[in-house]
């Protein structure tokens, strides 16, 4: 006996076919509407996990870029300040050279000494420069002035350079140079040199000794100029590192974004074709429904 196809067989089958077709249509519609292939974890569990991880990478990159930019701003300030410092050192050099020359008269020397005093104050304000509440040359002790504004003594507990990490899995870079590495050479501070030179210019009564003191000061000044140059090189190196890091972070962002797109986004052409396909399938299922249910033998018996 052949397989009996009963009325209920047809309707059961039809119901399930309509359901399947409708499900396909709904899925295709959702993908087109959201332009995403993954709309919930079960759509692609491992793709979902990949997207979550990629988003974490993206967020990490964003954070690193932000940190790098903050560090860069700070380094910029440090560099500008060092630049001003170097200009002042140049002036000190001129003053000392002038003061040590045999032709300079006592009133001139007095004037030069006064200028040195004011330069010393200017340098102090650079050394103790604050951005917000932080001393830029304080390093990790950024909440304390590197040099006492009154006694001009260096902070007994100097910090070390502040560091910040600007890329995943990289060693942190320095974001500043501490005052003790710029304004102190051989345990001698710039202020000490300036004060000694000013005293010598004003004259202690011993012209030869003063002359030697000034010569010594010029010598010491050479050390400070060199040191400030080294500091600026360090700052420049950090800024360079940041620039390179930002470059790489930018490239990684592009890669991560395109990965996210690859995993998460729908192939639009395919989704649109699926939508049309599933629509047609549903229509044909429905049209067969009207055909198979229209007639039975009873219609032909009279």
């Amino acid at each position, binding site marked *: 006996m052949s*397989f*009996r*196809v*009963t*009325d*209920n*067989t047809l309707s*059961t*089958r039809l119901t*399930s076919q309509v359901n399947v077709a409708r499900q396909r249509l709904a899925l295709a519609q959702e993908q087109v509407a959201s332009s*995403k292939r*993954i*709309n*919930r*974890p*079960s*759509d*692609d*569990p*491992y793709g*979902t*996990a*990949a*997207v*979550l*991880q990629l*988003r*974490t990478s993206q*967020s*990490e990159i*964003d*954070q*690193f870029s*932000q*940190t790098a930019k*903050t*560090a860069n701003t700070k380094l910029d300030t440090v560099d500008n300040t060092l630049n001003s410092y170097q200009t002042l050192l140049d002036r000190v050099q001129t003053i000392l050279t002038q003061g040590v020359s045999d032709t300079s008269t006592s009133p001139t020397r007095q004037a030069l000494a006064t200028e040195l005093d004011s330069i010393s104050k200017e340098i102090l304000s650079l050394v103790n420069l604050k951005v917000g*509440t*932080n001393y830029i040359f*304080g*390093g*990790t*002790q*950024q*909440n304390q002035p590197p040099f006492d504004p009154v006694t001009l003594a260096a902070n007994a*507990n100097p*910090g*070390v350079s*502040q*560091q*910040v*990490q600007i890329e*995943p899995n990289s060693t*942190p870079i320095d*974001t500043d140079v501490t005052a003790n590495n710029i304004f102190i050479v051989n345990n001698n501070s710039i202020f000490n040199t300036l004060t000694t030179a000013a005293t010598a210019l004003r004259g202690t009564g011993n012209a030869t000794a003063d002359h030697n003191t000034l010569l010594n000061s010029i010598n010491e000044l050479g050390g400070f100029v060199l040191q400030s140059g080294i500091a600026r090189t360090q700052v420049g190196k950090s800024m360079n590192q940041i620039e390179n890091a930002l470059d790489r972070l930018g490239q990684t962002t592009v890669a991560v974004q395109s990965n996210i797109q690859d995993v*998460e986004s729908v192939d639009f052409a395919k989704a649109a074709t699926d939508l049309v396909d599933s629509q047609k399938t549903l229509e044909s299922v429905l049209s067969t429904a009207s055909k198979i249910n229209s007639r*039975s*033998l*009873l219609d032909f*018996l009279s």
Partner: protein
Amino acid sequence: MSINTSLEIGQRALRASQLGLTVTGQNIANVNTPGYSRQDVELASSVVLGKPQPAGNGVDVVSIKAFRDQFIEGRLQAETANTGRLTAQQQTLAPLEEILNESNSGGINQALNDFFGSFRNLDANPTSISLRTATIENASDLANVLSSTRSRLVDARNSTDGLLQNDVKQVNTLAARVAELNKSIKSAETVGNPTLELRDQRNELVKSLSEFAGVRAIENQDSSVSVTLADGQALVLNDQAFSLEATATPPSGLSTITLNGKPAVIDNGRLKGETDSINYINSKINDLDNFASALANRVNTIHHTGEDLNGVGGGDFFVANNGGPITAANISVAPNIKNNPSQIAAAAVGVGKGDGSVARQLANLLTDTSSQVGTVTGSFSSIYAGFVADAGAAIKTAQDNLTTQQAILTQTTEQRNAVSGVSIDEEAVNLLRYQRAFEAAARFLKVSDEITKTIIALGE
């Protein structure tokens, strides 16, 4: 052949055809009745035993039989049980999808990124009170989203448990009705009443019982059906039904199902699907608790190595708000830190307040691959992604299994329909057949009547 015999044959033929028409009508009437098995009149030509007779004695109605294949019915029952289990599983796991969906934004992954990211900001500017405050806000957000996700998981689990309790009641109602029908069928058979429709009903009820509890059913000699659970414990025996009981069991308050005081062994059907889902959701809750506790531990350990803005060593960053061990439910930022952002220990001990190395270590924790949660080692970000993927895979498996199972059930149902289903076309043919037979039998009676008349006229 006597005249009387002719009339008798005619009368029997009429009755047989009429019965055929009735049965056809019954079939047509029940074309859409679930579980109905099509019937047919079993006829046999009648003979009179012991008397030598040249012709037969007309037609006998032997019985009305139902087309039912026990093998297919058994398969249908088993497939219904599978479908019940997978449907329940799919339905009860579906809420996890929304709870863990992060396809847009928000959620635990985002909160993790924000929390660890705020330590990255602190690395660049360790003394900033506003960044410290933002860190505490992000930490509180993370704690909140962990506990709200957990409580939504608990809700999903508890509502599944509610469903289970309802289904247990349903099983008891069905079992009672099967027992009732066992009784009715037995008594109907004793007095010789038809039982086909009652059997169809009972069959349908047993199928429902399978859908709910994956039961086994055996038809006994006395026409009663015994329904048992997987381990052979009886749910229905003759006209007696035994009740399943769902009792809330501490500490979780979830139901355990017992039958006659013993644990009920249910290996299929909706109840099994619901139990599986409850266990799965429980394991996810457990995973989330482990995650929260591992996260809090690692953050705390690193935080302890640091020094805050007041030069004081770092304490616990995360604590349990109710004192016990840290879980996803009770994780929160330590109150002293919450009230005083300067107590975040961002600096290494003795280096100065402007140091951010501890904040940096904390920021790097997000992708540090040596974190351990339960038995899984990896970064917090990858462990959480794995957690979501696992749930997604469980839901997807449940959906795929259900789709396959529905196809199997449809096919099995088609097989049953091929044997037991009513075809209107066939019934239309039967209608014609019995109608023509009835007409012919009536004609035969008329002829017999005329013959009788002729014979009577002979005597006048």
